[in-house]
């Protein structure tokens, strides 16, 4: 059955179940809504759920078992029809349709949240296997403690994660040091100072920054920002003459991250009840005092979430780093030197020319898994901070 017909059939069945389920209970109650346990619509939805739920489940199971085809569709259809009949019989006025519908919705909600878990599991598993393979080919001590990253085609590679880890942290830190203040202040300005009109323009405008393809940022870093920083900062300060640098990539990435902080924080700040602002104003607090001492603490969880999201993007970014900071792995404190990140190397080792079963390629998975664990640590810390300092209103 083609996808189109499948979708149509499912929709038709659902429609029929809704109409019939509703009509059936209304006739049983002789049209008296008050005699029903739940709203008529609930009875309709209950019928829809019972009709579609098991049938879709069956179809999915059959698909997974490799039984796609007309037979599976027919089986699912038969089950749906049987379920429809059952659902209609179940729809008596004292049937707790709302509870049934809500149980169904809850199941859907739980299912949805399992997807996030399943994704995590999938990612960890898909990396774990190859990582084990990698460590069977390459000494883990070398990987974790070596300060040299130098893959070679002829073997003899040195695959130490330290310079990459350092580059990742350094670049992300600079990016956040730029994006968080700018984004947060922009959010504060938009939600607390700017007029409605200005906010309505500025907020979506800043959001475009999140949608500009990263290659544009990369080229911007390469062509404009890099040489600028080199000629005006790095060389006068005697910090080297590299156009690609941690600073270049960090700043440009910071620009990209502005809307992550500004838009999400703006929403959360706007959600803080006005009565809290009033309370502070009435004590003679200035707007900035109100914001800093009352609103921001109340909006903390959302703001931390926004910052984490920005940090995540910074850690996961490739193009800007490649073009802005270069591809050379290096351990250095000088922000005007070229460095690179774990993510860049994951991408390049995965899309490179090495033998796909060689440690030079497999190292990507070990890098990915390590990065996963590192960011997990950061997130645990962030959660702890939120727990500690959150101020729950009302």
């Amino acid at each position, binding site marked *: 059955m083609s996808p189109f017909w499948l979708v149509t059939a499912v929709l038709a069945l659902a429609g029929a179940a809704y109409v019939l389920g509703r009509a059936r209970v209304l006739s049983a109650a002789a049209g008296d809504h008050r005699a029903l346990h739940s709203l008529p619509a609930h009875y309709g939805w209950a019928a829809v759920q019972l009709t579609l739920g098991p049938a879709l489940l069956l179809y999915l199971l059959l698909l997974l078992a490799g039984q796609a085809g007309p037979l599976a569709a027919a089986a699912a259809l038969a089950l749906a029809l049987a379920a429809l009949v059952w659902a209609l019989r179940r729809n008596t006025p004292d049937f707790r349709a709302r509870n049934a519908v809500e149980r169904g919705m809850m199941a859907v909600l739980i299912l949805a949240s399992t997807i996030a878990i399943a994704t995590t599991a999938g990612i960890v598993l898909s990396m774990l296997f190859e990582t084990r393979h990698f460590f069977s080919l390459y000494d883990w001590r070398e990987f974790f403690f070596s300060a040299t990253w*130098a*893959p*070679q*085609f*002829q073997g*003899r590679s040195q695959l130490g994660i330290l310079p990459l880890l350092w580059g990742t942290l350094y670049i992300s830190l600079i990016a956040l040091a730029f994006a968080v203040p700018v984004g947060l202040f922009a959010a504060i300005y938009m939600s607390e100072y700017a007029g409605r009109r200005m906010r309505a323009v500025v907020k979506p405008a800043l959001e475009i920054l999140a949608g500009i393809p990263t290659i544009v940022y990369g*080229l911007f870093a*390469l*062509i404009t920002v*890099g*040489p600028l920083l080199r000629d005006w900062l790095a060389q006068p300060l005697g910090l*080297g*003459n*590299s*156009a*690609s640098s941690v600073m270049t990539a960090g700043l440009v990435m910071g620009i990209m991250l502005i809307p992550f902080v500004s838009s999400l924080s703006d929403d959360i700040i706007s959600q803080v009840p006005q009565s809290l602002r009033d309370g502070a104003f009435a004590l003679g607090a200035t707007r900035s005092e109100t914001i800093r001492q009352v609103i921001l603490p109340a909006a903390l969880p959302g703001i931390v979430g926004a910052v984490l999201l920005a940090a995540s993007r910074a850690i996961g970014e490739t193009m800007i780093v*490649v*073009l802005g900071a*270069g*591809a*050379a792995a*290096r351990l250095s404190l000088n922000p005007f*030197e*070229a460095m*690179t990140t774990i993510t*860049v190397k994951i991408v*390049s*080792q*995965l*899309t*490179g*020319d*090495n*033998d*796909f*079963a*060689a440690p*030079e*390629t497999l190292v990507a998975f070990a890098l990915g898994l390590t990065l996963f664990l590192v960011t997990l640590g950061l997130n645990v810390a962030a959660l702890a901070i939120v727990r500690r300092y959150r101020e729950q209103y009302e």
Partner: protein
Amino acid sequence: ARDQVQVAGSSTVLPYATIVAEIFGESAGFPTPVVESGGSSAGLKKFCEGVGENTVDIANASRRIKDSEIEACAAAGVTDIIEVQFGYDGIVFASDIGGNAFAFTPADWYKALAAQVIVDGKLVANPATSWDQVNPELPAQPIMAFIPGTKHGTREVFDLNVIERGCKDSGAEEALAALVGDDAAKTCTTLRTDGRAVEIDGDYTETLSRIDSNKEGIGVFGLSFYENNASKLQVATMNGVTPSTETIASGEYPVSRPLFFYVKKAHIGVIPGLKDYAELFVSDEIAGAGGPLAEYGLVPDPELAKAQAVVADETTLD
């Protein structure tokens, strides 16, 4: 059923493959094949994923398939692989059109880029900062080389045919062997990381932009890329030879690598047009001298007939 050929693999081969695919779709009566680019390794990995409609038919590669990969392929049921070598990718050294002209030897590159060199019998960090220090005949221009990153197959060729060769030619290898023993080869190909050798993990357009913003840089390019941008770049000679399709095909110019594509024999006859596409690819009108591929910059394989035979007979690797 899938009705178009699916190709994956090397980004170096990609332009050639798309030229062929375009012509194939226009005139052969089959849909235009889909050509993915994701790198030789990723392409071969997909190729070796198994046999069936949802696996690719052809993998392009800018290097030969490795034995370990063949084994992995076999483990997944991909056994009959047809290997087709259809030409060469020339690798050239070029700098900004407005700057100095260069005539290199591999030894110059070795001396300029090695991390450590022997000075007065001791191994020290490479002190060279400008080209005339490694070879008085070169211009006094600071050393700034944009070389392929370690993900690129070009880097392997560069390491082997330029750096290692230069290490040997300059006599450094022997001296190193005496000094560090078995590590000599490794010391030869370890490049400096003080910012004078900049690795490019992106593509040639990135190298070009870097030269644009740093006019003293010298970059490594594919021949076809250079030829399309000859108005911005000037090419350096290597051992006195100017790179061109002719000098590379004849072997005079030393730096090049062969290009391949691999066909899944099990798919021939299942996926319509698969064999026709492969045949068109290696036909004289397309891949021969004067054909569209050569026009774009491919160095035609002097032994193209061999490739045609391989395709015609569906000769598999053993």
